């Protein structure tokens, strides 16, 4: 089988180029194929991987323009493999995730205080069971179109993490969490649903963001873009 890989090294004089590899493997995951190339053909090929079982979130990349986990994707002849978007490429298929992960801290994605009670019903637990399955692979971050216009957008995984804590019965100050996500947060999402389509864990950040919007409204917030246009028509200036 023949696949094409986008190669890139950040060091001087090296340009970005696509390289094709012929590999004698059938019914293999993309990660198995990359390992085959690295150990048998080209040890300079760079990518991240870890658990091989879709749980560590290391090997997210794009195939034919779509985000996948290399360990969970059955590779096909003619596939084109590229690094994720919206993060700086360090080398080949490896991107720098530091900036992306910092949005967890910026969004304050944690339980605000230490909870006291251990009693939590099955129903309460089910509320954020799926959201707490997130493996931080960054696929949703890569596919999100909002970063083209707003680099400070807290982004899909950080907002899903906020919903995971806001919806948790052990969270004592959910209002504070809602306050934090009003700027560069829930209202900046276009609800395009791309994040849902690429999530390997079946999480829908779009749906979580919608739930956070409802919580925001319940807390007295409103969509700032809507408020602006509404407000501007009051002072007599034309509204488009």
């Amino acid at each position, binding site marked *: 089988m023949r696949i094409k890989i986008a190669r890139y090294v950040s060091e001087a004089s090296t340009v970005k180029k696509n390289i094709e590899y012929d590999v004698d493997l059938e019914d293999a995951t993309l990660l198995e194929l990359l390992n085959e190339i690295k150990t048998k053909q080209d040890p300079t090929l760079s990518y991240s991987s870890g658990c091989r079982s879709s749980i560590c979130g290391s090997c997210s990349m794009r195939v034919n323009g779509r985000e996948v986990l290399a360990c969970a994707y059955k590779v096909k002849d003619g596939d084109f493999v590229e690094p994720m978007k919206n993060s700086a490429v360090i080398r080949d298929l490896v991107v720098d995730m530091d900036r992306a992960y910092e949005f967890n801290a910026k969004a304050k994605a*944690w339980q605000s205080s230490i909870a006291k009670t251990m009693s939590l019903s099955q129903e309460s637990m089910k509320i954020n069971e799926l959201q*707490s399955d997130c493996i931080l692979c960054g696929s949703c971050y890569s596919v999100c179109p909002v970063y083209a216009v707003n680099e400070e957008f807290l982004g899909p995984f950080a907002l899903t993490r906020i919903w995971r804590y806001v919806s948790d019965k052990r969270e004592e100050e959910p209002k504070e969490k809602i306050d934090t996500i009003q700027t560069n947060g829930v209202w900046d999402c276009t609800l395009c649903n791309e994040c849902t389509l690429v999530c390997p864990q079946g999480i829908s950040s779009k749906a979580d963001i919608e739930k956070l919007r409802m919580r925001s409204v319940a807390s007295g917030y409103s969509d700032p873009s809507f408020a602006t246009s509404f407000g501007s028509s009051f002072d007599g200036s034309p509204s488009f």
Partner: protein
Amino acid sequence: MRSDVLIIGAGGAGLVAAINAHTQGAKVKVITKEYPTRSQTCMAQGGINAALGNASQDSVQAHIENTLMSARGIANEDAVRLLCESAPEAVEWLDSIGVCFSRTKDAKIAQRTLGGASAARACYAQDYTGLKILHTLYDRCNALGIEMLNERCLVNLVTKKPQKEDAYIGGATFLNIRSGEVETYEASSVIVATGGYSRIYDKHSTNSTSSTGDGLAAAIRAGARLSDMEFVQFHPTALKGSSILISESARGAGGYLLNSKGERFTNELAPRDEVARAIDMEIQKGENVFLDIRHLGEEFINSELPQERKLAKLYENIDPVYDLIPIKPVAHYTMGGIEVDEDSSTKIKGLYAVGECANHRVHGANRLGGNSLLELVVFGRQAGVNAAKYAKIFDKTIDTDEQTQSDKNLVEEVKKFTNQIDFYEKRAFIGNIFYNNAGISRNDRDLKEALCQIHQIQKELPLMGPKDKTKAYNTNLVEFIEFSNMLELCEIVIVCAINRSESRGAHYRSDIPEQNDVDYKAHTITYKEANLLYADFVE
């Protein structure tokens, strides 16, 4: 810039230590060769043991007895007692910071039975227990503003040995994977939390490719001691083709092990060493072995074992709801580790170790499922608190120049190695010879043969080296450093396995199948002096 406490590794053990050292007021820095949430801890599925008695009658005493029974006489009873007594509080703490444990109908933390346990004792979160614990710990570290530096691979520990005094720690050197530069981080105390060494078995391991024992290798080079290195746990049920783990909870819930004739041949819920050996014996007879969970039903499998179904479909093209799962036992957990005392302290002053890379003598010859997540919470806290206290009274000088220069030279030298022999081939070769000669069943002749091979490969190391000479993000170089670390540990594992002329727990000698308490109810201690390896038994 100097920190009070430097923590190497950002899995569960490292992060629990970081939180506790920070809470003591220490300036903490965590450095990992990956990112925190990518650590091996995320792969733990089964659960974390605590005698809560939420699902069945249980007691701390029963937890202690089960752990000691599985350890086959070489666990430290005081350490086991501390582990088990602290367990309910450890789980309560995880719950209090937001870990999404599965629940019982009466709103308590759900528990299930794992092998070797007399009760349903493992608290779980579907089969994502490790993932949810690790991510919640990471969120907690963010909440506390703990500094975490990513993608830096440990090279060496920095120590100083004043005349007539004990050696003490002063920091560590790392290869910044992104820049390709050697960086030095000074600290008054250092906690090694780098995980185990199961990847010496290469493809015959459930572990992440990162479990290469870097911290253990650096520790013994720096003068610390490693103990019980011959004890490697083989998980009975990994997918046959890919060594992907199928959690013990599948058997805990009632899954059967079957041979090609469709016959059950062992007690599925015996401790892991016994089940792994029973499966291995079937395989030696020419049988294929399968895990059968079909009778548990689709609904149960989807709610309790969602990962297993997904992985079996992906890697074996079978659906466990309708098909048998082909399995084999592979290396899963390394009981051996950096020797620590009852304070998590190593022989080097200010150097602590915790998690799978450490040996707190709680697992002995065979770890119980559900005790490793517990260990990292209980001893992670201890190591974090003690390292912070030590740092507070630290009044010595740190000079890292010599080690920094030496490691810069080392990285440059390694890149000049001649590449006449491919180290990836040797890595795969060692994995096979370890699985066959130093695996589930061992004997003197096979072990000595493997030792000869390891010695030969050690000699050939300068003929290997990375082919990639690039500075930025050179994973070929990183993998060579990891390979060198594993090669160092391989020799130790085999020497210990040869010396232990008996069978005990996970160390099974087919030539000497009896346990011999008169001569070997002791810990194997290894250390290096002037680059020579020494191995002794101590009580």
